């Protein structure tokens, strides 16, 4: 009765998961430093549109990816400036970043809606219809492999290196970190811009490979899922990756449910990631006294002078 194409589902799951994971990893790094950036949706859009525009005009894929990363990173420095230098509210600034990013990308991309992309991010092996799991993995593009590398290296950076220790110290207790001689502002600024750059990478993955097209609101809520994913993953790269696979699977499932012959509302499936995140938060509150793994200092501006 139910006719399920497993390889197609797996392929779509990996594609959706890659985008979510890269954006979530960026936000994870930012949040580790104690800065909450709700502007993920806006940053992905900026990366997506600048990458797309560069690709249409130059046809150079490497340059396009680079432009996408750098412009989203530059865009996120706005959040860093407002929250770290001016010490303003992080929630408000992040929300503004989302709204601004969506509108700005719509404005910038107005001439590029529906334009055909001359190039695409290459994949390792050119396989049209993967028939087994290995072929599905080989047919992914380079950013997929890059995201695996980023996952491993971020996990290593956070746990094993001085940089990770410092980042964690700043995010857990900025005052103590300051007393120890760490430059809190600088660390937070760098973490925010790295997070923005990764959102930009997620953006170019979207428009230069996953859906080779540009139109307003291309991101369609993925930034918010990435934010939920950070909570789901307990601020740990590997758990975030597992969460990305789960949420990516749900995303891949939405259009396919209809072809499988299930009578399940696509709307229900679409809210599932958020519902799961809420359930996890509730469970953690009940069983672990609310210790979700969030950095203690998140969202709190650091004033050196106040005691």
């Amino acid at each position, binding site marked *: 009765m139910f006719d399920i194409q497993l390889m197609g589902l797996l392929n*779509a799951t990996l594609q959706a998961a890659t985008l979510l994971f890269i954006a979530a990893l960026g936000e994870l790094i930012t949040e580790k430093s104690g800065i909450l950036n709700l502007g993920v949706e806006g940053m992905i859009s900026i990366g997506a549109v600048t990458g797309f525009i560069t690709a249409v005009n130059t046809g150079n894929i490497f340059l396009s990816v680079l432009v996408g990363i750098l412009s989203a990173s530059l865009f996120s420095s706005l959040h860093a400036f407002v929250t770290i230098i001016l010490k303003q509210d992080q929630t408000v600034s992040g929300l503004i970043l989302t709204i601004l990013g969506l509108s700005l990308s719509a404005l910038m991309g107005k001439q590029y*809606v529906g334009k*055909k992309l001359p190039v695409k991010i290459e994949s390792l092996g050119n396989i049209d219809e993967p028939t087994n799991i290995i072929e599905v993995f080989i047919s992914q593009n380079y950013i997929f492999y890059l995201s695996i590398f980023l996952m491993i290296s971020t996990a290593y950076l956070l746990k094993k290196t001085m940089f990770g220790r410092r980042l964690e110290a700043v995010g857990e207790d900025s005052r103590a970190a300051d007393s120890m001689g760490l430059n809190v502002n600088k660390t937070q600024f760098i973490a925010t811009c790295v997070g923005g750059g990764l959102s930009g990478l997620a953006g170019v993955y979207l428009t230069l490979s996953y859906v080779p097209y540009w139109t307003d609101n291309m991101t369609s809520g993925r930034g918010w899922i990435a934010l939920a994913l950070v909570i789901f993953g307990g601020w740990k790269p590997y758990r975030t990756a597992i969460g990305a696979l789960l949420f990516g699977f749900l995303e*891949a499932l939405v*259009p396919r449910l*209809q*072809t499988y012959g299930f009578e399940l*509302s696509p709307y229900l499936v679409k809210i599932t990631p958020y519902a799961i995140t809420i359930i996890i938060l509730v469970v953690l509150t009940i069983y672990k006294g609310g210790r979700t793994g969030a950095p203690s200092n998140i969202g709190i501006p650091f004033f050196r002078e106040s005691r």
Partner: protein
Amino acid sequence: MRRRWAVGLILISILTMACGGAASVDEYKAAFVYVGPADDGGWSQAHDVGRQYLVEQTGIQTEYTALVPEDATEFRTVAEAYIEQGYNIIFGTTFGYIDAMAEMAEEYPDVIFLHCSGYLNNDTNFANYFGKMYQPRYLSGLAAGAMTDSNKIGYVAAFPIPEVIRGINAFAAGVNEVNPDATVEVVWTFTWFGPEAETQAANALLETGADVLAQHQDSAATGLAAEAAGAKWISYNTAYGQDSAPEAFVTAPVWDWGPYYVDIVESIIDGTFTTESYWGGMETGLVSLYDLSSDVPSETATLIAEKTEAIINGTLEVAIVEEEFISNVIGTVNP
């Protein structure tokens, strides 16, 4: 003194207008409001080609605004700006503008509102117009039925509303006529222009083994997916899709709004305009099937030519089914 002059001028101009008989084209300015980009290669572009034809034929001054969401406030903002600039004919070319247009027609009795694909009108200045797109969709079904090897045809559908459902049924009826073994599988995307959702839906259908895809949306995303998978594609709206996916492109049920736009604007100018609902079929040229690609078998091409002839001279009526899907369609009308 100056004011008296102004009053005098206005009086004179009113008198000349009243006595002048038929009005001239200079007194009218037409504004078009599109839901998608004017060069989307689809629905909105078809309207924009019609607008350009209108300008060529009548010399009327026109302007357009693209990418206006289907939202009452958004439409109103755009339309009011045009009215302030003296535009007195407003074309709204997507279903979602319906409520805003109905309200504004009451507020601005001197402006004529023409709504595409709607069902509301009034007695004076608000009319609606549409075409019998299900007729060429039936013809495109004949081509799809002949082109499929897997006997699985995918249909990337927009919203479950009567217009879309009758299109799917007419298409499936065409498929059934040439290939009773083939089925038409439907996936809803809930978009008019959503390349992402359409790519996903097209891929989902291709994975089930579909080797011909048809669509109702305004982007070429379905065609790009079909091209990448080596499948065939029935486009929609305009033939511009063939540039996006030249290998996949088979044909497209297309719009030609130009002649209708000329007729309606001329009727407004010479005072014969009525607010009747206009629903043009293939006999008017408003809707048609675009030239078939060379890989369509010649006997199918002959059959399509015969059926086209029969629809135009009225001997063949394509059935309108909007309540449920006919038997060779897989999917639900209430997703």
